[in-house]
């Protein structure tokens, strides 16, 4: 049975109408890639009987199911305690539930298997990570009467490593039969995130390199130039071509890594060699302030059981991150050997702000610009999904920021420790 007209009151004035825009501007202007922290809302939940009563109330509005099931996006209705009281067919299918009843009373992060919501006993909306969650922000603003679109990056425990999901989250208030709900629509934001990465981060770099190569090619054949100048141009031409190839190939590598398509060829490799090769990968002009990396001496070398190309790649991402975070210099790297692991560390001066720390491993999170921010995410993906290692960080005012990549030590040599001089 449809409710009567009197049971459905208008949206709060200034709510939807103030927030709404024509299509083209709406999709961009209301989106915030890096929201400021949001205060955590009350954690109290409605009793199961209330949730069931709200679900029953919505079930009496059959047009709701029919309309929301036609949407290309996933949709849910939440009660004031941010608990699900209605789910569209697409959402039920996406989370692999038997039916909407299975999801009743849960919060969005719990339904979408957000790792932060699952790792504490208190669930979605209660962890420090929730203070920077786009979804939570969208929903709490909608509860104040303002329709919102946000991007939410959710890390889900996948089959191996983590499985990130970027979502456009739009939340709007809606009153049905005298009760306020929040209508949340979720659609993939992957297109926008990938476009930004390619358009804003990769293309300008590739263009700069291509322009450099164009000029070097001219100088290398310039008959008016001295033979030394031509030779120098030739040398630089080779290096610039390699950098360009590496840059564009990295695009394919990231996609392949996420799809689990990277082949792993593990063997025993010297930790010292691995680190010095990764540090030596930086050409002139590739990092702000020049590639000045201090390699700390290590009392002993050790054999790491790893894929050297992938490990070097992960280390390179961490080094680049550190160089970009500390343009004034002071980046250091080294490794420590323990019984069964080798811990590679990369340190830069300066502490990361708390919101940055909370998102540093999120895909497409960057403090620099939209489209940047794949380095730490990619390094973690490689380390944890392909190299049986782990990647963590520590960031404090007096020690600066240190990322530690832990890789397994070669079993045959673990415990003995090859003697060596310095890294």
């Amino acid at each position, binding site marked *: 049975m*449809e409710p009567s*007209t009197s049971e*459905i009151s208008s*949206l709060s004035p200034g709510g*939807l*109408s103030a927030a*709404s*825009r*024509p*299509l*083209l501007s*709406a*999709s961009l202007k209301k989106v915030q890639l890096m929201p400021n922290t949001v205060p955590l809302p009350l954690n109290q939940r409605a009793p199961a009987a209330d949730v069931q009563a709200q679900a029953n109330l919505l079930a009496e509005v059959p*047009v*709701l199911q*029919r*309309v929301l*099931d*036609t*949407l*290309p*996006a996933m949709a849910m209705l939440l009660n004031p305690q941010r608990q699900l009281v209605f789910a569209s067919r697409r959402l039920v299918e996406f989370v692999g539930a038997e039916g909407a009843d299975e999801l009743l009373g849960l919060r969005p992060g719990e339904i979408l298997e957000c790792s932060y919501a699952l790792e504490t006993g208190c669930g979605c909306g209660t962890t420090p990570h929730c203070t920077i969650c786009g979804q939570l922000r969208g929903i709490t603003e909608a509860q104040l009467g303002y*329709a919102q*679109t946000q991007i939410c990056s959710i890390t889900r425990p996948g089959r191996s490593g983590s499985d990130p999901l970027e979502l456009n989250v739009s939340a*709007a208030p*809606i*009153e049905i039969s005298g009760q306020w709900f929040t*209508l949340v*629509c979720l659609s993939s934001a*992957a*297109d*926008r995130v*990938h*476009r930004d990465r*390619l*358009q804003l981060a990769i*293309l300008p770099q*590739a*263009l700069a390199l*291509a322009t450099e*190569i*164009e000029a070097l*090619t*001219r100088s*290398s*054949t310039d008959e008016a130039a001295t033979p030394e100048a031509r030779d120098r141009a*030739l*040398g630089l*031409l*080779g290096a*610039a*071509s*390699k950098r*360009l*190839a590496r*840059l*564009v*190939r990295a*695009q*394919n590598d990231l996609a392949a890594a996420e799809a689990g398509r990277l082949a792993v060829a593990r063997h025993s490799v010297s930790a010292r060699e691995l680190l010095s090769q990764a540090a030596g990968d930086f050409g002139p002009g590739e990092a702000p302030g020049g590639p000045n990396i201090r390699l700390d001496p290590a009392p002993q070398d050790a054999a790491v059981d790893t894929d050297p190309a992938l490990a070097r790649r992960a280390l390179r991402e961490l080094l680049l991150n550190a160089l970009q975070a500390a343009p004034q210099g002071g980046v250091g790297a080294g490794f420590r050997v323990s019984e069964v692991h080798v811990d590679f560390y990369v340190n830069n001066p300066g502490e990361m702000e708390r919101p940055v720390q909370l998102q540093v491993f999120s895909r497409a999170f960057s403090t620099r610009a939209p489209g940047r921010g794949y380095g730490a995410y990619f390094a973690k993906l490689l380390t944890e999904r392909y190299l049986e290692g782990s990647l963590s960080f520590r960031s404090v005012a007096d020690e600066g920021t240190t990322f530690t990549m832990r890789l397994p030590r070669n079993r045959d040599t673990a415990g003995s420790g090859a003697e060596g001089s310095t890294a």
Partner: protein
Amino acid sequence: MPLFPLPPSQRAGAGDLDAQARILDAVPALRRILDALPTMAMVLNRQRQLVLANHRLIEFASTTGIDDLCGFRPGEILHCGHALDSPEGCGSTEHCTVCGALQAIVTAQFGLAQNQLCRLQLRTPSGDQPLELDISASPIEIGGEQFTIVCASDAAGRLERERLEHSAVPQAVELALEMEILATSIASPGAPPEARERATEHMAAASRRIATLMREHAELASAETGGLSVARRSVSALEILRDTAREFEYHPAAAGRRIRIASDAPDATLDTDPALARHAMEKIVLNALEATAPGGVVEVGCRLAAGRMEFWVRNDGQMPRDVQLQVFQRAFSTKGRGRGYGTYFAKLIAARYLNGTLSFRSTAEEGTTFCVSLPLT
């Protein structure tokens, strides 16, 4: 792809529309739900006329309320140039036979929900502009009457990603690999001077191509908003043709194919921006090369006609009718995802920056000829 048959153009009378609007008004939750959606949404009757619109659509259509839109069809509401040009409106023109929105709506009327891309030529006060929309259409029964719910959202992000991921990046990967190999052979001390010279020439062409490839992305957006600067000078028409052909010397699309400059091309001069003119020509030549089998020839030429210089590019083979109808649409391609910007870009440059036109003729006997017509002065 077969052309989509046009549905009947008959419309419901005002009385029927009122009755349908009353049916929807009796379900007030419907409007609330549609208004809370993040996309434009409308409810259509069986004649594809709007009975209900959400506030996002009303704002997009720049009207004050639903009453201004009631009874109109989607193309008329969304300011589709083709719909506005036809006295019978949306769904009545030959262009409608390749319209994604119409296909989705008609399919939904048969009971099947559909998602389609709609490439719209948006009519604006400053001329037609392309707009791509992801359209979803689903059947819905309300008060015993059959309706179609249509949602429309901007497809720009998705298309741009495809363009970069499926076109620009793979091309750049290929070029970069080629350049890496060339750099090694240029630096090789044992190589004979001629081989080094050839490799250097090849390197110069490859670096130019990769720079153009990267630049084009920014350029297209800039061209669409009128941001390209024009530097006119007196230039030989033949020089434009030769420079265009030279650009394909090491191009993979030209492998095994020939570009022939017509012997009767007059060596006249015209006043234009040579870089932009060449850019437009390169797009059309690339299109022609891709439509030409290995061993085939693409012919280019020019002729003087009524105070204008007409550059032409010809290849064998006729374009199917559905391709002809969409060839100048942004993001339309027969070659796969991420493609379909060449002819659109060429037309944009010719029309908006060079005061010219781009047209084509495609028949079984004569093949396909694109013609860029530019003023002499």
